[in-house]
């Protein structure tokens, strides 16, 4: 029987895998970059906070889309449920932010856990339709239950207490951005850890070849239920943050539009690449903010073209494109 200490391999495989998961200097640069708005764009902190929240939502979608391969057109079900839950909680119980977050996340997690049993059993069009159907159902329900949700007027009168009793959620957005950014970073670290764990490997296995998984003894459905529930929890956190930082919740938190937008952001940045959702969100939302003057259908004209271009020429999004460019540069460099 061959010993792995032969040929100097030793613990080489383990060290190789460890190297793949090491923190890269570009990542440090990215996170330092997220601090820039405090110094360079203090007028845009509200926008920055919204970007952080949407990036968190995109991260949750990337987890099921980019890693497990589940195409969901209804992920706003969790985002919106948590937003309403947190908002209603603050109106009816108290405005303490951390408990509000917990309530929002709990609501989304429960919904995610329940629907995970259904989701894990289906694939392809049926799966897409079920995710869409659940979200549309919730949106209709929220519209109808206007006594609770404010219906199409949205949830009004949310009042969030100052964070830690001291930091006000004001119009400037310092508190909002700090709050959202910390949430994003903490969750990101958790997700990064998950991706580099055996479970992350199993998810990639499901994405790469769902048929092979049972043949190696993998309980794919159980894995999918787990990741779906976790993803719902993270989407819920984003939704609750939205309710607290903007102190309002409207039906669009549950709408198809937002689901489609976030899907575009993840794909734009590059699905299954951890930072793809974040980069895609930043690019999309900054562009949207800059072009906010133009009518929605013209915005979607360009987004439509962009989608077609991305899917035809840049299938792995911006990050994929950067990877290809970097490899090309490296090849040229080594030929010198």
């Amino acid at each position, binding site marked *: 029987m061959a010993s792995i200490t032969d040929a100097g391999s030793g613990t080489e495989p383990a060290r190789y895998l460890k190297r793949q998961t090491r923190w890269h200097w570009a990542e440090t640069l990215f996170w330092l970059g997220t601090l820039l708005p405090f110094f360079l764009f203090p007028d845009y902190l509200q926008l920055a906070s919204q970007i952080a929240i949407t990036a968190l939502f995109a991260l949750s979608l990337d987890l099921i*889309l980019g890693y497990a*391969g589940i*195409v969901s057109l209804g992920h706003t079900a969790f985002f919106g449920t948590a937003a309403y839950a947190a908002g209603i909680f603050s109106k009816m119980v108290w405005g303490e932010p951390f408990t509000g977050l917990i309530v929002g996340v709990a609501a989304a997690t429960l919904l995610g856990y329940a629907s995970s049993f*259904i989701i894990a*059993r*289906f694939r*392809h*069009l*049926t799966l*897409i*339709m*079920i995710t*869409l*159907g*659940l979200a*549309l*159902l919730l949106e*209709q*329900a929220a*519209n*109808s239950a206007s006594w609770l949700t404010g219906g199409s007027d949205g949830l009004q009168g949310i009042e969030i207490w100052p964070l830690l009793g001291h930091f006000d959620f004001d119009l400037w957005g310092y508190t909002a951005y700090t709050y959202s950014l910390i949430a994003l970073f903490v969750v990101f670290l958790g997700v990064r850890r998950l991706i580099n764990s055996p479970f992350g490997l199993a998810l990639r296995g499901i994405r790469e070849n769902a048929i092979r998984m049972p043949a190696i003894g993998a309980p794919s459905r159980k894995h999918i239920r787990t990741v779906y529930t976790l993803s719902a929890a993270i989407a819920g956190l984003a939704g609750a943050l939205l309710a607290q930082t903007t102190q309002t919740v409207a039906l669009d938190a549950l709408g*198809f539009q937002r689901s*489609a937008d976030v*899907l*575009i952001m993840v*794909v734009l940045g590059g*699905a299954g690449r951890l930072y793809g959702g974040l980069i895609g969100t930043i690019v999309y939302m900054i562009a949207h903010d800059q072009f906010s003057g133009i*009518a929605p*259908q*013209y915005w*979607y*004209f360009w*987004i*439509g*073209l*962009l*989608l*077609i271009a*991305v*899917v*035809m020429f840049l*299938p792995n999004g911006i990050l994929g494109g950067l990877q290809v460019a970097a490899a090309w540069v490296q090849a040229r460099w080594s030929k010198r």
Partner: protein
Amino acid sequence: MLPPVFGVLFDGLAYGMLLFLLSVGLSVTLGLMNFVNLAHCAFAMVGGYVTVLLVNRYGWPFLWTLPLAFLIPALLSVGFERVFYRRFYGKSDLDQVLLTIGIAFVSVAAAAWFFGTTQQPISTPEVLRGSFHVLGLDIAPYRLFLIVVGVAVTAALIGGLEYTRFGAQVRAAVDNQRMASGLGINVERTFAITFAVGSGLAGLGGALAIEIVGLDPNFAFTYLIYVLIVVSVGGLGSIGGSLAAALLIGVSDIAGKYYVPQLGAFLIYLVMLAILMWRPSGLFGRR
């Protein structure tokens, strides 16, 4: 005197026939090539705008525009299939979804650019307007016309599928693509033609829909959701399934809005979810 439920049924049937026309093409092409074409309703929209253009700008009578409302989207779809769709046949669901959503977005913007964002009214022929009183119900001749067209199209489709050689080729390819091409059936050509017919029918549906639900650039998405519901409930690749599902959804929607208006579209989502969970491949899907 018939109770109002019959009126609801009649309206539901008419609406269902409309949904059938809009959906049958997508169901067959999905079953045939497994290609998720979310731009399907954009073709429907094109048919609608063709009619609008011909009636309002050039004064054509409504009924004469219908063949063109069928033909132009059909021809357009052949072009799109050649240039775009063909490269995505084996690709993942997500890639197909993104490509076709992108195309749909662009078409919505184009429609808004050329025709503006408001609903476009058209004038329908005298004979189809208004309503007449029968057995205590208000029957709109236009809806009757819709049902007749729906029945005619169904008969033509089923007849074509069962009794023509091309129909046999389509059935074989839906059943087992590899085997079909092994038998010498040109699967790609079969698909191109089926796709064209499906898009043409959608265009026809779009033109007919103007009078019932109105036409604006958002049609491509608003009705996409209904179409997807019909297709997934009916089962991919099944004409009978599309018809059954379309009628079911049509009647449920009208009935829901009539009897329990606060629930709105709630009812059809529940119906869809219930059916999909009971039969994931749809009522008449294969698996």
